[in-house]
Structure formats: structure tokens, C-alpha cells
């Protein structure tokens, strides 16, 4: 029972970070219908940013999120403006390869700057935990879970209540119609990519105190982000949140009750089952 609840809780907490990565990807996909293969690499850049702010300026990772979010937003917006906007109408395989190429450039540039060494960010609380009914809960993960929840709530408010948020949603629903309604679709795409990137970067920042950093770390998370977004329904923020937590728990439970080796297979099988039986995702609306 203890093993069960312990793995449930750790799965939930990690799932929170996964959710952030997934939400970022789902916004980008929702608005642009582009699968961003550089998503994990963008997250990696967020991690390096956090790491350098911590080691060079001594800013605590959870505080530096306030700096990471705007910088990563600008970075994403720039990527969109310079590269992605040019291929919005291109063949889907070209869009995918463009993001793969951008990812390669990001990870290898970081490698040239920071070498391929593993960087570890150690804070005073990196391995602290507290106990709740005999279950140990990682302190940094708990903090990042709270921050994630806050950001998700904020995003919800943004998409539901603000004009820009509604314009982005309109663009996601029907690009052409949105254009006809006078929405600046290109600008919305830039904002969407910026948002997606800043969320990926934030996820990177939040995971930094309990994880490690190296230039090639992105691809693991890119794949995970795909699974999460499809699971939740591409374009659905609530779905991605749920998907992230689901994957976190599935991995955690899979490791205990199946085996650590097969747990990733569990995740991919789950992914295929959803694709086949409910391709719109658990919470997505059916595609036209």
C-alpha cells in the first residue's frame, strides 16, 4: 500500500512538470498544426538559462522563472517570426524537418558553448523532502507542482478572458475564418509559439533543481510531449494537463508493477490505443 501511494504521489508530481511541457506543445500545434520537434530542445535552453542564472548570478531557480518566462517567450516568438512562419503552408514533412533542423542547431550550439558535460544544479533543498502519512514528498517537486498549477490557471484565464487569448483560440479553431474576421493570424502564431516556448522553458527551469542538464537532453522530452498532447487531445490545454499527469502516473506505476524497463512501452502502447480508438484524444473535440 505504501509502495502504491508513494509511486502515485511521485507520479503526480512529475506529471505536473510533464503537463507544462505538453501544454506548450499543444498550444503550438493547436494554432499552427505543426508538430514541433524542437520542443524538448527549447526546454533544454530554458534549463541552461536557469542553470546560468543560478551559478553566475545566484538566482534561485524558482525565482528565476520570472526571468525565464519572458526570455523564452521572446526566443520562441523570434523562432516563429524568422523560421516557422515561412513554412506555414509548406508540406507537413517539411515543417517537421525544419523543426528537427532547428533542434539540432540548438542542441549543438549549446554543446559548443557549454561543452557536453552534465551540469548539476544543486540547491540547498535539492534532495529535501517532507513526509505526509509516511509518504515522502520531494520539496522542490512540490513547489514546482504548485507553480505549474498557478501557471495553468493563469493560462486558462488568458485564453478565456482576454481578447488576445480569444483571438488565439479563434485562430486555432479555423485559421481561414479567423483571418476573415480580421484577426492578425501571423501575429497570433508568433504569440502562440512564444507562449509554447516559454512554457517549455519554464518546465525546464522547474525540473532543474531535481534533474541534470546536458545539450542532448531534449529528445526524451520531445517524445514525451507528443504522447502527452495526443493523449489529451491536440490543442486542448485541459487535455494536456490531464495527459501530463496521466503519463507521470503511468510511468511511475509501470515501473513498480510491470518493470522499469517496460514502463516506456506502456506509455507508447497507451498512446497508440488512444490514437486508434479516440484519435481526438481524451478531452479533444472530434476533428472535422
Amino acid at each position, binding site marked *: 500500500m505504501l509502495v502504491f501511494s508513494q509511486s502515485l504521489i511521485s507520479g503526480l508530481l512529475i506529471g505536473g512538470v510533464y503537463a507544462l511541457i505538453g501544454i506548450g506543445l499543444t498550444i503550438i500545434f493547436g494554432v499552427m498544426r505543426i508538430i514541433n520537434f524542437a520542443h524538448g530542445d527549447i526546454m533544454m535552453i530554458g534549463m541552461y538559462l536557469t542553470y546560468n542564472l543560478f551559478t553566475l548570478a545566484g538566482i534561485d531557480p524558482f525565482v528565476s522563472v520570472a526571468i525565464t518566462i519572458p526570455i523564452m517567450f521572446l526566443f520562441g516568438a523570434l523562432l516563429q517570426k524568422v523560421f516557422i512562419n515561412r*513554412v506555414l503552408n509548406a508540406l507537413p514533412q517539411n515543417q517537421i524537418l525544419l523543426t528537427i533542423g532547428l533542434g539540432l542547431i540548438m542542441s549543438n550550439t549549446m554543446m559548443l558553448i557549454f561543452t557536453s558535460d552534465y551540469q548539476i544544479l544543486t540547491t540547498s533543498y535539492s534532495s529535501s523532502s517532507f513526509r505526509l502519512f509516511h509518504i515522502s514528498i520531494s520539496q522542490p517537486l512540490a513547489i514546482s507542482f504548485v507553480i505549474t498549477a498557478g501557471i495553468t490557471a493563469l493560462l486558462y484565464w488568458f485564453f478565456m478572458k482576454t481578447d488576445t487569448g480569444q483571438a488565439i483560440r479563434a485562430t486555432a479553431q479555423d485559421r481561414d475564418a479567423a483571418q476573415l474576421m480580421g484577426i492578425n493570424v501571423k501575429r497570433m502564431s508568433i504569440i502562440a509559439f512564444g507562449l509554447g516556448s516559454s512554457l517549455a522553458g519554464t518546465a525546464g527551469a522547474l525540473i532543474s533543481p531535481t534533474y541534470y542538464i546536458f545539450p542532448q537532453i531534449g529528445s526524451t522530452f520531445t517524445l514525451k510531449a507528443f504522447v502527452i498532447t495526443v493523449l489529451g487531445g491536440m490543442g486542448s490545454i485541459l487535455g494536456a494537463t490531464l495527459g501530463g499527469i496521466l503519463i507521470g502516473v503511468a510511468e511511475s506505476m509501470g515501473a513498480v508493477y510491470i518493470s522499469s524497463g517496460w514502463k516506456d512501452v506502456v506509455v*507508447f502502447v497507451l498512446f497508440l490505443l488512444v490514437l486508434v480508438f479516440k484519435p481526438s484524444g481524451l478531452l479533444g473535440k472530434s476533428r472535422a
Partner: protein
Amino acid sequence: MAINTKENKAAGGSFITTGTVLSLLALLALASVPSVVSSPYTLHLMILLFLSTIMGQSWNLIGGYTGQYSVGHAAYFGAGAYTTMILLQHFQIAPWYGALAGMGVALVVGLVVGSICFRLRGPYFVLASIAVAEILRLSAMNLKEITNGAEGILATDLPPFSIGGTVITDFSTKVPFYYIGLGLVVLTVVVTVAVQHSKLGYYFQAIREDQDAAHSLGINLSLYKNLALGLSAVLTSLAGSFYAIYVGFVDPPTVLGLDISVQIVLICIIGGIGTIYGPVVGSLVLVPLSEGLRSNLIASAIFETGIVSESSPVGNFLKENLAHAHALIYGILVVVVILFMPDGVLGFAKKLVSKRKGGRA
């Protein structure tokens, strides 16, 4: 003009076009390379070039002609490689039979993939194809009794190849591998040409252009998509088997990893998708470029031309970083090709030529 070439091509054989003549000449030249060139390094690079062409050409059938962008072709490559190696190591079955068995396994995997993924379109298909390849990779990692898990399978020496008692080759040099590779290139090209000049080719392309329209014109979508995938899977598995016997070692990341899948797609996109010469051109760009950067040949070439002196700070920088940066340059190349040559290098070259001729379409 356009009609003429079309007519000639379609007549398939009754007309001998300059293209066929040139291809035959090129083949002849390639076949005579081992008797002229004795440098194993050169032969090795040629073999890598062949391998890349086979992989690209095989993917082209499903990705280029049929428009189903599989980013999971490592599954078939790995199926061929693993089947060949497992049969060779556990049961001492000669690799040529192993390759046949590998084709069977790849076909089965392909049909499973088809039954799952062909219900899906666009990005969903891409993701599903990745997922299947990843499941295969993780399974190879975990099924230790069969695949030896992460440790991989190391081949002992190959049995000599003999026909009726006479030993044709004992695989002690690169030459037999060279000819096997060349043979497989010819095979994939011939299959592609045959497909292109048959009902299959027309149907594949119709599906690529517009699935609904194709469906309404009497094309059984799932039948023809599965045919294309099956054909592509079988040929890709041959590339995998060839890789396995040539390198003599397989493990999950090197033959089933996501980067193999991506590399296969890149060969076609960089060369030019949906054309016979595309994968050849793509390989001609990628293989020498990555080898040149990797081994610093490009840096030393720059020094030899005297543009930059080796001892100068710039020279030193190049020497130190060019090899490190080869993956970076690869990435830049991909971005440049996608942004400025969306039809690949081949398409770009064609456009340039037609522009020079005065804009004839």
C-alpha cells in the same frame, strides 16, 4: 515537350532515352570501381553511400510517392538487421536466408503499422509511426533472451558464400560488400521505376495528392497504402540486413533509434522527394558532407587551398571546432534546404536550369 518525355518513359523499354543510357553507363562505371580503386576507405565510403541510397529509395516509395510520412522506418531497418543477426548467431543461418526472413518480419511489422496508422492522417500518422518504432526499440532492449538486450549482438565471421561447392567469396575484403550494396541500389531503383511506370505508381501518387479524391476515383485506400508500406518496409529491411552483416554488430539504439528514422527521411527531403534521383542526390550530399566534417577533411582541404593558414587563429579555430560542429552544420543545412529549396537540392537545381534557359516551365 512534357508530353514527349512522358510518352517515352511510359513506353518503358521500347524507347531508349538518354536517361536510361546514362544510368547504364553510370552503373557500368560503378561496377568497375573495385577493380580500379583499391583503397578500402574509398570503398567503405561508397558502401555507406549505397546504404544511404537504399534507405532513401525505400522510404521514397511510401513517403515520397504515396505521401505517408513515416518517421518510424527504423522499425523495418531494425527488423531486417535483428532478424539477420539473431538467425546468424543463434541458429547459424546464413545471412542471405536471414535477410529473406528479415523481409518477412518487416512485412508483418509493416502490416501491423498499416492497420494501426493508416486510419490516421497527417501529423497523427507521423506520431503513430514513431511510436511503433519506439515500441520495437524498447522491446529489443527488454527481450534479452532473444536480442541480448542493450548489449547487442556481435556477429562472428560470416560463412563464405558459395554456389554448388565453389566459394564465390569469403567476405575478407570490402569488394563483396561493395557489389551487394550496388546490387541492392539497383534493385531498389528498378523496383521504384517499375512502380512508377505501372498502375501502382499512379495510384500511390493520387493518394499522396488527395486521399478523398483518390478514394472517389475507385482507389482502395487501405489496400494501396499497405502495398506501398509493405514494399517500402521489405526494401528497408534489406538495407538493415546489409548494414548488420557489413558492420557485424547491432544494438537497439544504432538500428532501431529515432535518429535512424529521421536520417532516412532527410536523405529524401534533401535530395528531392518523390523522384528516383532524389535519394541518390540526397546521399551524395549527406554522406560526403558528414564524413568530411567528421574527419576534419574539410578543414584540411581549406588549409590546402591556402585561404586560411593552419597556424593562424582562424585556422586553429576551424581545426578545433569544425569536427565538433558537424552536427550543427548538418542542422543548418536542413534548415536552409527546407526554407530555400523546398523541393530538395534536385528540385532547386532543376529550377535554376530552367531559369537559365529562359523560364520555360
